[in-house]
C-alpha cells in the first residue's frame, strides 16, 4: 500500500462519516421522544413509479402481497417495522435489506420495480398536514 492509497481510504471514510454522524445524532435525540410518542411510521409502496399502497407500520402483523406484471413480492409488517419476506426476483437483493423500522429507510427490489419507503411523523405534528394533499 502506498501513501496515496491511505489518503484515498481516509477520503472515503470521511465521506461515509459525514453521512453517518448526523444520523447518529438524530437517532440519539429522536429515540427517546420517538419511544414516548410511539408515532407509527408510514410505508409507501410504489411499483414502477406508481403508488401501490400505503400502510401504517403497526405492532400487529400484516402481510402485504404485491402481484404485478413485474413479479410477486411479499412484505410483512410487524413491531412497527416492515420486512421483505419473499420475492420471485432473480437476484434476491431485496431480501437482504432485512427488517427496517427507521425514518428514511427503504427497501428496493429492482427487477420487480418495487420500492418501499418509510416516512413518518418523527418531525412532529406539523407533518400531519401534508396528508391533505391529493394528486
Amino acid at each position, binding site marked *: 500500500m*502506498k501513501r496515496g492509497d491511505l489518503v484515498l481510504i481516509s477520503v472515503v471514510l470521511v465521506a461515509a462519516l459525514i453521512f453517518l454522524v448526523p444520523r447518529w445524532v438524530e437517532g440519539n435525540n429522536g429515540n427517546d421522544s420517538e419511544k414516548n410518542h410511539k408515532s407509527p411510521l408510514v410505508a409507501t409502496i410504489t411499483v414502477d*413509479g406508481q403508488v401501490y399502497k400505503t400502510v401504517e407500520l403497526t405492532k400487529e402483523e400484516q402481510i402485504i402481497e404485491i402481484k404485478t406484471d413485474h413479479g410477486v413480492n411479499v412484505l410483512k409488517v410487524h413491531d412497527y417495522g416492515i420486512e421483505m419476506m419473499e420475492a420471485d426476483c432473480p437476484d434476491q*437483493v431485496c431480501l437482504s*435489506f432485512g427488517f427496517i423500522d427507521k425514518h428514511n429507510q427503504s427497501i428496493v427490489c429492482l427487477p420487480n*420495480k418495487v420500492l418501499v419507503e418509510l416516512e413518518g411523523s418523527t418531525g412532529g405534528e406539523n407533518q400531519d398536514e401534508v396528508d391533505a394533499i391529493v394528486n
Partner: protein
Amino acid sequence: MKSTPLSTSESALLLKRTVIISIFAAVAVVLSIVESLIPVNMSVPGAKLGLANIMVLTCLYFLRGRDALTLIVLKTVLTAMIFGTFSSFLFSLFGAVFSFVVMYGLLKISGKRLSLIGISIAGGVAHNIGQLTAASIIFKTSSIFYYLPALLLTGIVTGILVGIAVKYLVSSLSKLSLFAGFTD
C-alpha cells in the same frame, strides 16, 4: 476504408489481445457465478465482494482502456444471460462502466501515487455509487442513498481484498509468455 494487411507482429498482437480479453471475460463470468454461490450476508443490501473486478483491473493493467471496456460489456451481457437478470442489465452496466471510468481515470492521473489496491477501492466505491445513482434515477427517489455510507465502508474492505488479489495475479501472469509484450 482500405484494408491494409497487418504485419505479422501486428496481427500477433491483435490476436493476443483478443485471446486475453476472452479468457478474462470467461474468468470474470465464472467469478460472478462463484460469488453468487457464496452466501455472504454482510447485512448491507447490495454489497458484493466484486470478484469480477479482479479481472477488469488486471485487464486495465495489461491492456488498453478500450480492451477493458470490451471486457466489461462482454461480462455484463454474459452474466445477464446466465442469471436471466435482463431487467437489471442496464443497472449493472451503469455501475460497471462508472467503476471502469473512475479506475481508468485514476490509473492515468495518479501516475504511481496509487497502488492497485487504491485503484481497486476507488473502483469498488464507484461501482456502488453508480448503482445507487442508477437505482435512484429508475425509481425517481433519493432515499436509496440512505445505504451509501454502509456501502462506502464495505467498498473499502472489498476493494482492499480485490486489490491484493490483483497484485498477486498480475505478478504471476507477468511470467507467462502470452503477457510478455504487455508488461511495462
